[in-house]
Each structure stands twice: as C-alpha cells, then as structure tokens.
C-alpha cells in the first residue's frame, strides 16, 4: 500500500534500504519492514534514505538548501501533531499541523482515483512525508497521513525522536568513546547537574594509592589496601576471573597451585581467612570457592 502511494504520489521513494534502526514492532504500524522493499523504479544512483522521526520545530529549522540534521540528510520523515486548520481544494488539502514545538503546513495532494475524506480539525495525526520549501515557506509534502488511533503512538513518537537524535549523535562521535547516552542521562535528580567528569587529579598526597581496591588493574594496584605480600598475591589470583570459573570463583586448590613457591599453603589459608573476614572476598558454591566482592 505504502510503496504504491509513494511511487504514484510523491515520487520521493527511490531505492530501498531504509536505514532506520528503530524496531517498529510497537503495534503502531510504524514498521521499518514495510519500507524496506525496493520501490518499483530503482534509480541508478541508489540513495540511502532513512525515515527520521522529527519534531516540527526541527523541521522548521532545517536549512532549505542543505537539509542536514545532526549530520544526516533528511529525506523522509515522520512528524506527529494536532491538525489546527484544514484547507481543502480540488487538487490538494493543506493542513496546519502543530505539535507544541511549532506549526507547519502539510500538503496532501489528492489522488483522483481513490476518494479520500480529508481529516477533520483537532485530529491528532501522523504524517510520513518529505521536506519542501515553497515560496520561502517550509512545508511537509505528505505521502501518507493517518489519524492517531492510539495515544501510545504519540509517546512512541517522542521516544523515537529522542532515540534518533541520540543514535545520530553517537554515529557522529563514534571512535571518540561513544559515550553519548551516558553523558545525556547521567544528570540525575541533582537538578542542574554539572555531571561532566573532571580530569584534574585530586591531590591525595601521602596516602599511597587509595584507588587500589576500586580502580582495577593488575600488579601493584593493591598498595592501598594495607595487605601483606601473601594476602596480596592470593587476592590477585581471586580477582582474575577466567571464563571457566565465572560463577563459582577459584577453588582453594587452584589458588594454592597458582601461588605455589611464593606463598606456603598455610599462609594461603590464613590470607583467605583474613580476606573474607574483611569482606574483600566471599565464598560461593561451598567454603572452598572464593570470589572477590568488587568484581
């Protein structure tokens, strides 16, 4: 249904391969699958098109010459809003759509073959369409327009808008840590949270290495825990979690074997007792298997 209309009406839908990563399984009919089949007329230079969920404000802020949103060309988009005005002519219907971020004109060309009833004012509707500028005014050329029948669509749309923005930002910053989601959500109840990490070192002079038991890492990272050499070697063995002992941790025999030559078996037992009394390690499947608490 969709590809028919797209081909006949707007002519905007070129090739397939819509690059959307939003799972459209929400019952809202917004399945990416239905866009994925190649249109009937496959152009020679196949463009990769994507359907972007946007707010109307974003659409209004698009540059008419370079429709660029967070580094991605906007071709096809989805907007959702309330119809404030309807203007019906013989060839087209012009709606004014408002989603509280802004209002924009949406043009729907009428198909002479199918009799379509124009939507009423005060209908919440979803529009799939393309961006056009006509005599300096920004418009959406609707390919498909449907009334919202379930208010969850609105919520889903808002989530998709946020998700798309985050995904695009991540695409832009990929390689530089990719910590977009983190940075955005980290500010919690603290209000105007300046949650950016400070890189400056807090001076902790003369305190050894207090990050020892938190920082993670190999060798000498335990200087801050005040452990003896024997306890340290035992703790190091327990901290290294290998795949074959993921859940149960290391057995007493395994630890003894690992530190053989360095620490006597009796010392291993003493160290294990000390470490578990201090809460650095705990026993798992039985009293002879240990795991580190900070792992």
């Amino acid at each position, binding site marked *: 249904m969709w590809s028919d209309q797209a081909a006949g009406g707007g002519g905007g839908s070129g090739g397939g391969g819509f690059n959307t990563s939003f799972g459209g399984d929400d019952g809202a009919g917004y399945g990416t699958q239905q866009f994925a089949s190649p249109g009937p007329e496959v152009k020679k230079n196949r463009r990769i098109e994507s359907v972007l969920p946007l707010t109307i404000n974003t659409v209004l802020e698009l540059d008419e010459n370079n429709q660029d949103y967070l580094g991605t060309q906007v071709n096809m988009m989805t907007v959702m809003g309330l119809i404030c005005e309807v203007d019906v002519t013989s060839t087209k219907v012009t709606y004014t759509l408002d989603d509280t971020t802004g209002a924009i004109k949406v043009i729907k060309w009428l198909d002479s073959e199918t009799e379509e009833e124009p939507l009423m004012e005060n209908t919440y509707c979803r529009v799939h369409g393309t961006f056009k500028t006509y005599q300096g005014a920004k418009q959406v050329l609707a390919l498909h327009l449907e009334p919202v029948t379930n208010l969850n669509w609105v919520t889903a749309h808002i989530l998709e808008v946020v998700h798309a923005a985050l995904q695009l930002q991540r695409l832009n910053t990929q390689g530089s840590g990719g910590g977009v989601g983190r*940075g955005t959500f980290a500010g919690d*109840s603290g*209000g105007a949270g300046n949650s950016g*990490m400070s890189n400056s070192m807090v*001076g902790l002079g003369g305190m050894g290495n207090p*990050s020892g038991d938190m920082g993670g890492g190999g060798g000498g990272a335990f200087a801050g825990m005040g452990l003896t050499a024997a306890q340290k070697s035992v703790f190091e063995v327990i901290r290294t979690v290998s795949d074959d002992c993921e859940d149960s941790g290391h057995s007493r025999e395994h630890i003894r074997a690992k530190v053989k030559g360095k620490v006597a078996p009796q010392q291993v037992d003493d160290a294990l007792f000390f470490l578990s009394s*201090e809460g650095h390690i705990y026993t798992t499947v*039985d*009293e002879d298997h240990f795991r580190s608490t900070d792992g």
Partner: protein
Amino acid sequence: MASPYFINLASFSFYHQREDLHSSTRPRQQQHNDDHDPYGSDPSGTAVVVVTAKQALTPKDKKKSIGKQVRSISDQFHSATLSPTVASPSLKYAGRTNLGKSVVQYGASDNTTWTANPDFHPEVKMLKDFEYLPLTKAYKFMFEKAETVGEVRNDLTLCLGDEMEDVMLDKEGEGGAERYTTLIEETEGMISTLGRIHCGPSTRLEADGIMFEGMMDSWRMGKVVPLDLSQVKGFSLFPGQIVGIKGTNSTGDKLHVQELVDGKVPPEPSSPITITPGTGPVQLVVAGGPFTTTSNLLYEPLSDFLTTVRDNPPHVLILLGPFLDAGHPLLVSNDLGETHDTIFKRCLRIIAKALEGTLTQVVLVPSSRDVCSSIVYPTPPYDVPGGNFIRVSDPALLDIEGVVVALTATDILFHIGKKEISTPPQTRDRLGRLAHHILKQRSFYPLYPAHEKMCVNSEKLDIYGQLPCKPHLFILPSGLRYFVKEVEGCVMVNPEHLAKGLTGGTYARIELRPPASGTGMTGAINADILKV
C-alpha cells in the same frame, strides 16, 4: 521415552481428568508403560501416567469424568512430579563436615544453655515508637517520577543535616557557619554544606574523581561538583552517602573539603526493656535464605535446621528470605514440575509442622530475591496463605519485650562493600566499618544508585527504610563472612545463609538476657553462629 518437558507442560487439570477417564474405561495405561516412567513410581500405585499428546488434549468423553472423585491437590504434588534433578539429594551437602559446630561466639555464650523458659511468652510486635510505620500491604511500584525521587532524596539529606547541626553549624555565632549553604551561592570563605556522594557518570568511585551532589535550594536547583579531599585525613565513602562538608567553594566548581561528617548514629530507643530475671532470657534463632542447596529443591538444610530447632525450641524463630531464590539454577532453567507458590506453601507447611506443639513464634521476612514476593524494595510481607506466622516486611523493626530488633534480608553490606572507597588503607574491621555506615546514615539502604539487581522505590524507602532509632540488635544476612559485632552500642549479627551453594551454611542463635541495671542492652546479648 517421554521427555521431562512433557510432564512439565501437561496441564494438571487435564491430567486428573485423563487419569480418571482411563481408569474407568480401560486398563490403566501405566500397566504396560512402566519402563516409560522415568520419575519413579509412587508406592500407592498411582504413578504418573504417560500418555500421548493427542490423548492429553482431547479427552474421549468429558461427561464420564463429572461426579468422579478428584484426587486432592496435595496428593498430586509430591516429589514424583518433580524431574529427577529437582529431587535427587545433594551428595556434597550430605558429605559436609563440622555439623552443628559453633564458629563464632559473642558475649558469654559458653555459659548459655540456650533453652527457652516455657512459661515465658515474649510478645513480638512491630516497633511502635518514633512514629515508625510498618509496611503491611503490597503497593504499586514503577510509578516513580524522577522529580519525586529527587525531592525525596533531598529531603532525606536535609533531615540528616538537621541531626548533624551540632557538629556542622555554629548557632552561637562563634565564627563558624550559621546555616547550610548551597553550592549555587558563590561565597568566599568557609561554608557548611550538605549533599550526597555521587560517582559521576562511572558506576564506581575513583579516588581522583569523587563528585558531590549538593543539596537543592528553594528553587530546586542543585549542583554537582568534584571534591578536593586532600585536606581530609581519612574517609570511607560510597555513592549515595549523605555527608556534611565544611570547606571552601570560592570558584563554584570545586569544593575544597576541610572537614567531612558522614552522618550520625540515631538515638537510643525509648521503650523500657521488659525482660526481667523473673521471666528469664528470650531465646532467638535466626536463619537467612536461601534454604536449599543449588543442586535441588529438597530443602535439606532447612529440614536439618528445623530438626535442631525442634529439639530445643526457641521463643522466636526468625526466617529471612529468599525461600525460593530467583537465582536458583532450577528456577532459572524452569525445570520444575510445579508452581512456585506450591513449593513455597510446602515450605511453610514443613516449617509449621516441625514446630507444632512448641511455643516458638515464627517471623517471616521476605526478600526481593524471592520469586514469591514483590521484586521491589522495601518488600511487602509474604502474601501466601498458610501457617501461623508473623509476616513482616523487608526491612522491618521489631519490638521483642522492649528490645528493638532490626531485620533486613537484603545484602546491603555486600552492596556497599562493592562500591565503598576508603583511605587511609584500614587493614582491620572493614565489615564493621560497612555496618557503621548503615547506622550513621540511618537507613537500611543508603546506597544510591542501588545495586543493579535491586529495584528500590525511593518514596517507600523514605517511609519504611529509615532507622528512627538505634536498634539493640541488627540482623542482616550477607554473602560476606558471618560475624557478630558490636557497633556503636548495637549488636550486628550476620548469620550468613543457611545454604551456601552446594553445601550447608550457618545460622545464629541469640539470647537476650535481662540487662543489668545501669548498663545497656549490648552487654546482655549472647550470640552463637553455628553450622547447620
């Protein structure tokens, strides 16, 4: 050969219809199906009938089953309906050593007989003082707004701030700060401020990047700044901890700490202790779940434990969940022949039966890890009928003849231990330090953000998870090693778990003696931790 799944999936309502049907219309099918029965036959001859799927779904004649006597439910759910792994005894558990050995003693436990005075019936009730409201009903969760959480957390910070006023503020005007200053206000000179330790975007604290989330001002604005702790000699911090800080914040983007105050121990409970030499001591036995080994669901440790309890029944038996741990391998693999509730009810029945005729009162504490209770923390009491139990929430504050007992089945020590950072390296008594935090923060769960497996409802934690007074006895089963410690005049008992992986664990018995005049309750508590 029928697969174990067949029996598991077959609906039981079909199952008894089916059996009645076959018994009346033709010879029992299992007569020539004995070799198909991998579940062991029941001696009474009513073994599991293995029929084909078609027969299971299309009873030949429904009318004939009407009016027939249907076997009782409890008859059906015996161990024959369990798959072999569920019902085979654990060799490792049976082969354990040191049965009944005492591993920790506290107080004058050597001279204790641990026998309960049968004429004394101590009253177990929820704490009534300090406007403590017990959580008695299930509530709706996952409806929290971020805004509400923020406000609740801020209110808690301010409340603890009020308590810390005597050390933090200088009301007399002798040069110190007279009120708490938010981080929004840019001030030269020393300020006193309140807030929480914040781990920033990473999930754990790093010594060089400890952040501080300052309290909100009247416009609900707050600020998060890094802390400069170089002037502080020693500290032990974890995310979510409420601290008062004296220091300077001249630039507004870094707080130079001069003094750090990490909460305050709550006041002594006010109720008079009514244990007298006439009544004799109150005997308690405490065990924390899980109660069965990870290899089966036969509850062998629980049965052995109940046998010892029956031989020497205490006044009060406190059992802390989980009874049916959501992490149990057989639950994870869904390899069960019966519903979770059935197993749990059987558990309760076994407990009730074992203590029949004794004077023991049983207190059940749920756990958010239990499949039979809500997953949210604070956890409302178990809502499964059966038995005459005192059902309380997790956490709960009990009043046993004036002795305030705090109970929580949640492993807060372990959770804080994972996130805590301390300096200078303290080599001794880390567990005591962790326990200290719980008292000083006056909360059963001061860690924020919570452990990834915990679903904490901040609003309810504010009501039900606070410590309005210092309990005499604090029971918190933990994955960390068992201990009995006195912390700030509160005896903390970690009985560990009754079942430890594949083998048996430990439980605690506690004696509350009448306190000698002039001394606190701490000197009147004896405790012993024993292997099951």
